[in-house]
């Protein structure tokens, strides 16, 4: 039996006198913060895309969330709880309360995602919201959580803005960002393709696309590459032929695809069809780069990604103990290895629970303090820091390459380099992240 | 001077000359029939009266106004109503609502944003519409949906709608086409009664000679796009030109 506690912002309760027609109203003490759990359980809200193009990514996130809840409540093999350097979690829920969860559908739309998050907060009494598969949604829901006074642990969001101009005190991001992709990719690209390259960008025409393009352009120009052109492509484009066709005669010898999901699969497929990768330009082999990869994108693009460089937040092929433990428990439960989206949300759930334990409260302000400046290891990616200034997580970033002749569909990408954390760090007031402020933590109520 | 004066109207479609130098004058207060064999240009001529077609040359004057270049609703506003070959009514509305609409149009003009008063509260219009239905003896059917009426009743309703605007000229395009004999006779009676009571000028296009000769006070015969004869009914019967025009057609 699931139990749903519901708490409004103005608390009152009425006691029904036996046989009395009129309820007597007694105002109870004001709650200390939004949805303060009073029973024996605590509810987390998992808000992921379940319909639309990113539904499969959402399903994978949900699997990881369920696994995390199972581990928190002492079920399963405990996964990364054993490799996590913080030992505050005991497998008895969070602060002794059993962890329950509700799920919702973001539809990858800001509006729907906010509606879903609101219902979790208002109806189900969720104390924390997490998930999502795009930056627009993450930023919109982060704003909502700030206003409502609950913690938001962003899921898959890569835009610089999430912890840049749109950062919020109640929001934390475990995922890496566009700047980090650029910083991690640049040295690898320099090694592989040299310093004299001319890059042509195709960029999805919305804010995530712009920030990634800006970051990659800055990083590649940093290693001496020239940017020939940047062409914005409408989000709704399905056939990229008319954007790909002119690339070959533009004088560029590298094509950078600042696309995600279906856009990326389609643009890469078109680029390969047009034979770009078989060509020589300026005496060099023409190359394609996809700065942000995901396992599902690799699967959808099939053989087209062979040899293409990109970056990811994490990969199940990493060799550290945390990764091994997680891959084992995920693989045994579901029969296939987890995606980097799954690892991100799993790690975040554990981190949130751990912060509650260390803070000794569910109060967002207490949790915020516990997470700010928190250093840990054992959740994959090596030593990790949640920076106080912008709530961005800093850890190693993976540069990946499409594998030739992969053994199976989960093995399409291989790690080329684990870029150390120091190399992808930046100052909190870096111009690409300027313009916003965290504000104060908001406990609601 | 008639109330409707048509002078030297020409209209052609591509190479086909549909109307050639048509002249016609309709006297106020009379029933004027326009007859002629198929393809003589009767409907084309009627469409020139109501703004659906614009003649290539010539003038159509009604009560001192030129009708050329005016839109159908403007022509109606100056007092011309039209009955169609197949009744054009508001099929999804009730009989009473069908009559209310022309009453409102008569009172309020081509457009009024009359969005906050109640139709049932507009007593002047309501009374007028109900009276109109009594006049055409349809008051017992006022709450029926118009599409469920018999064909004869639809025609009756359409006339009621036209008459409720007190038109100066009523155009009737084959008002009895496709009707059973009894319905036809009813229609003739209705039109005659209207003429008696209201003295409305009517222009009737009709195939059915029984209708024409029961009603018309004057008849124009149209053949191959021109008016060949315009005269009193008694003179039209047996007129050689008319016989010539109808020969072959009449034989079949």
């Amino acid at each position, binding site marked *: 039996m699931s139990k749903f506690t519901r708490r409004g*912002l103005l608390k009152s309760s009425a006691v029904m006198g036996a046989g009395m027609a009129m309820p007597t109203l007694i105002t109870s003490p004001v709650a200390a913060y939004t949805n303060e759990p009073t029973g024996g359980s605590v509810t987390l809200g998992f808000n992921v895309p379940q319909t639309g193009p990113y539904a499969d990514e959402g399903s994978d996130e949900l699997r990881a969330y369920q696994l995390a809840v199972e581990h928190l409540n002492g079920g399963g093999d405990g996964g990364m709880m054993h490799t996590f350097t913080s030992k505050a979690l005991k497998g008895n829920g969070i602060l002794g309360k059993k962890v329950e969860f509700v799920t919702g559908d973001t539809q990858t739309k800001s509006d729907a995602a906010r509606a879903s998050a609101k219902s979790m907060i208002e109806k189900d009494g969720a104390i924390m919201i997490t998930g999502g598969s795009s930056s627009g949604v993450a930023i919109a829901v982060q704003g909502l959580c700030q206003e409502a006074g609950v913690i938001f642990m962003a899921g898959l969001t890569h835009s610089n803005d999430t912890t840049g101009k749109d950062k919020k005190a109640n929001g934390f991001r475990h995922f890496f960002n566009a700047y980090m992709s650029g910083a991690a990719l640049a040295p690898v690209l320099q090694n592989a393709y040299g310093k004299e390259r001319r890059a042509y960008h195709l960029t999805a025409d919305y804010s995530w696309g712009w920030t990634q393009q800006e970051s990659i352009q800055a990083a590649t120009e940093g290693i001496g590459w020239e940017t020939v052109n940047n062409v914005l492509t409408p989000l709704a484009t399905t056939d990229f032929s008319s954007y790909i066709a002119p690339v070959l005669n533009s004088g560029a010898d590298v094509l950078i695809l600042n696309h995600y999901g279906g856009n990326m699969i389609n643009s890469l497929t078109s680029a390969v069809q047009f034979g770009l990768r078989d060509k020589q330009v300026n005496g060099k082999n023409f190359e394609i780069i996809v700065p942000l990869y995901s396992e599902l994108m690799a699967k959808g693009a099939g053989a087209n990604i062979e040899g293409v460089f990109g970056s990811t937040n994490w990969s199940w092929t990493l060799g550290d103990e945390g990764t091994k433990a997680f891959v084992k428990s995920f693989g045994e439960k579901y029969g296939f290895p987890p995606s980097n989206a799954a690892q991100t949300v799993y790690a975040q759930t554990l981190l949130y629970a751990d912060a509650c334990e260390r803070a000794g409260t569910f109060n967002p302000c207490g949790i915020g303090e516990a997470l700010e400046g928190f250093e840990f290891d054992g959740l994959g990616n090596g030593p990790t820091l949640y920076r106080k200034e912008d709530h961005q997580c800093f850890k190693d970033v993976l540069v990946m390459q499409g594998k030739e002749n992969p053994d199976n569909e989960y093995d399409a990408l291989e790690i080329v380099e684990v870029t150390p954390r120091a190399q992808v760090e930046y100052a909190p007031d870096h111009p690409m992240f300027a313009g916003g402020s965290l504000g104060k933590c908001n406990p609601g109520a | 001077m008639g109330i409707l004066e048509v002078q030297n109207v020409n209209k052609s479609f591509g190479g086909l000359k549909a109307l050639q130098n048509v002249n016609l004058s309709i006297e106020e207060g009379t029933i004027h029939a326009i007859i002629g064999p198929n393809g003589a240009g009767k409907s084309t001529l009627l469409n020139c009266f109501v703004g659906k077609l614009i003649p290539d040359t010539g003038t159509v004057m009604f009560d001192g106004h030129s009708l050329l270049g005016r839109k159908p609703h403007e022509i109606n506003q100056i007092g011309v109503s039209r009955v169609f070959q197949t009744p054009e009514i508001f099929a999804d509305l009730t009989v009473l609502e069908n009559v209310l609409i022309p009453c409102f149009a008569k009172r309020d003009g081509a457009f009024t944003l009359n*969005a906050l008063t*109640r139709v049932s509260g507009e007593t002047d219009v309501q009374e007028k519409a109900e009276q109109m239905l009594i006049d055409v003896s349809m008051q017992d059917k006022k709450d029926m949906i118009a599409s469920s009426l018999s064909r004869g009743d639809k025609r009756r309703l359409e006339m009621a709608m036209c008459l409720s605007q007190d038109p100066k000229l009523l155009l009737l395009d084959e008002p009895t086409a496709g009707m059973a004999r009894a319905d036809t006779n009813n229609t003739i009676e209705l039109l005659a009664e209207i003429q008696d009571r209201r003295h409305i000028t009517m222009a009737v296009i009709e195939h059915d000679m029984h209708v024409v000769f029961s009603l018309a006070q004057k008849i124009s015969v149209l053949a191959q796009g021109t008016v060949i004869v315009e005269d009193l009914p008694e003179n039209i019967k047996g007129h050689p030109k008319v016989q010539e025009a109808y020969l072959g057609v009449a034989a079949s």
Partner: protein
Amino acid sequence: MNSLSKKDKALLLFVAVMALLAPFLLNPFPTDSAMAQFNAGYPDLMQRFAIFGILAIGFNILFGLTGYLSFGHAAFLGVGSYSAVWMLKLLSMNIIPALILSVIIAGLFSLLIGFISLRRSGIYFSILTLAFAQMSFSLAYSVLTPITNGETGLQLNLNDPRILDATNTTGNLPVTGLFGLEMRNTFTLDLGAWAFQFNVGYYVCAAFLLLAFYLSIRIFRSPFGLMLRAIKTNQTRLNYTGLNSRPYTLAAFVISGMYAGLAGGLMASMDPLAGAERMQWTASGEIVLMTILGGTGTLLGPVLGAGFIKYFENIFSKINETVLHSWFSFMPDGLNDAFVWVLHFFVGKGWHLTLGLLFMLIVTFLPGGLMEGWERIRDKIRGGKGGGKNPPAEATKTPAE
């Protein structure tokens, strides 16, 4: 109040009572029961019922009365939202100026689009409106980002000017209000196992819904409404009756655009974020579906249709396998799993499937939409003596086999 007939007064009163008691009616299950998932009586969803109700009522004035099927109505919703958020950013957190501006801007925008689109009728009109709305969406998502904040949607900021409001020193975003009454304030009434939520924002929305509904009744019963219905059934006759249909359709288009603007403004007032997706064709399509589903041309139908779709979107999408298991926990394991396995296709990530199936079933078996279902039930209860003087127009059409 002589402006409404007895029947209409009763209808309005019925809606008013329903709206007033919604927090009770939509919360039939005790909070801790397994069926609590089906409760819809929480502020956000109740607000949405009212807001989308307004939207559908407005759309019905155009589509239900004139028959002109606009496939771009979401554009006005979006424009209304953007205007409202801008007012909240620049002027004040009071929702009144925001709502006023959203209605005005949506009205102007619909005047422009209507003026052009109404030059055509039928499907040509539909495609014109669709084209305008899709252009608005595409541009709002991309190049207009400085005005619309594109992908994320337009949000409030700590350093917005808000010239009418006192300086905000809390470090948190201010909340929307109505002369000091905060929209997000909720009063929770715990009655035994139930907890009922009374939210200020919801009652503001409900008040506007009632106003919108009242105006719509007035329009339906007015000579203007009669003319609009006349346009739907026979434009030729209308023109030969001395009436110019264009100003009538344009007026209806603008009125329904203003309704959409009000709905957009209310959405932004309840939750100050305006996303570009609310202008996409799917959003416009949703409005069309709400209206048809509820019963085109009926007064109450569109509100029911709006509630129906929003209910599925918000309730069914949240039922996951864990919840299913808890429902059937009384069964033996194998049976439990079997039930969950079958049902999980229809809930959670499968909520679209349920919605699609219901669309098909309803339109096949209830040609007049939910309203027809409602009337059939009512007639059954009255034991056949109902029927009324004016059978609905749908009744004359051939029902599906």
